[in-house]
């Protein structure tokens, strides 16, 4: 018996063939590219040039503590909370549902076995460039180390209304399969009842075949409820 690397051997059992691009793949590409980009990064937050970094590093150390205390803001996007596994924006992350306390919400992946079953480490809540609450392991200085603002607690009335809107949309569309026209009408009805000013409902695209049930998304920066097609939920 020869001793072939078992992982290499497993590679032979790859059941997929390299398929060429289908029309649906091309159509998906066009649909995505035509979708407006929400929450473009703020050009003022671009990474500074290295020589500037060198010259300001001393000052940065001195002001870090003050930054951590003073640089606090609310998340402009209240419908998403991103939990990071490491104090690094590129680290493994999961998104959790809106919650009053993002730190508590992000304790879940540290207790349910996703990352750990031992409970969360010290966590700190920050706000990303796109206005999303992001929670990282680390002490109170982690936000400033990452160049982010700390998350201030509480929501404005509008943010609270957006969270409620998100919850109502989720409840309505997960319990009923609304087809394309019904989806827009139902989303509009729920939006009207939320009394959010300046918001609109948009159809992302005509529902593709097989994705017959509406799935709404809330885009706070664009003040838009966007409705796309989704596969019916398997009971």
């Amino acid at each position, binding site marked *: *018996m*020869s*001793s*072939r*690397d*078992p*992982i*290499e*051997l*497993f*590679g*032979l*059992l*790859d*059941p*997929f*063939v*390299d*398929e060429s*691009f289908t029309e649906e*793949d091309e159509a*998906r*590409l066009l649909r*995505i*590219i035509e*979708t407006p*980009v*929400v*929450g*473009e*990064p703020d050009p003022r937050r671009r990474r500074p040039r290295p020589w500037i970094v060198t010259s300001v590093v001393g000052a940065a150390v001195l002001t870090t503590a003050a930054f951590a205390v003073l640089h606090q803001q609310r998340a402009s996007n209240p419908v998403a909370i991103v939990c990071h*596994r*490491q104090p690094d*924006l*590129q*680290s*493994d*992350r*999961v*998104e959790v549902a809106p919650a009053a306390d993002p730190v508590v919400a992000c304790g879940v992946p540290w207790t*349910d*076995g*996703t990352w750990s079953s031992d409970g969360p480490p010290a966590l700190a809540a920050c706000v990303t460039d796109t206005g999303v609450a992001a929670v990282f392991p680390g002490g109170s200085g982690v936000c400033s180390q990452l160049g982010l603002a700390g998350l201030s607690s509480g929501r404005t009335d509008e943010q609270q209304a957006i969270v409620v809107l998100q919850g109502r949309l989720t409840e309505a569309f997960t319990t009923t399969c609304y087809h394309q026209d019904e989806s827009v009408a139902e989303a509009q009805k729920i939006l009207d009842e939320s009394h959010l000013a300046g918001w609109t409902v948009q159809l992302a695209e005509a529902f593709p075949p*097989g*994705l017959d049930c509406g799935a709404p998304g809330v885009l706070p920066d664009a003040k838009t409820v966007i409705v796309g097609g*989704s*596969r019916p939920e*398997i009971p």
Partner: protein
Amino acid sequence: MRVVPTGREGEFEGVYRDCLHEVRKYAAAHVGRDDVDDVVNATFMSVWQRFDDAPPLSRRAWVLGVARNHCRNRWRTDRRFSGLVDEIAFARPRLETKLSDERVGFEVLDNFQRAIEALSADDRELLVLSGWLELSPSEIAEVLGIQAGTVRVRLHRLRNLLTTKLGRLNVEDGVA
């Protein structure tokens, strides 16, 4: 005539074409074929929205990390990679041809199926990332959000574990 996109759109199209097949393969292994299209749609929409955050040198791993998050967010943890054995069984006729071309005995299929059933979901994921997607330890580390050294250790242990299990199942990969 199709207009060739430029700038951000052109870069995104390049990533889409480079990574679509791998995202599809990863999603099928993770959540099963029925949900592949949903994962692919959600993944590339997220990639498009966050394209400016993409690291320039490891976009493949970054895109797979996005796909991984979508898989984990939308489906229960206990479904992770549970369909792997079914995937192999489904493709059995084609895999037998492939094994024959490589002069590997068909019993490898059955033995791997039994060995995979005994692996943890984390080890199955590692097997897919390394065996099917042929990612390097550094790329796997980026997808999983852990250190490359940790990946190497886990691959070493997985290799030993599989060797033991397959050996116990009396696997012979040469033609008798």
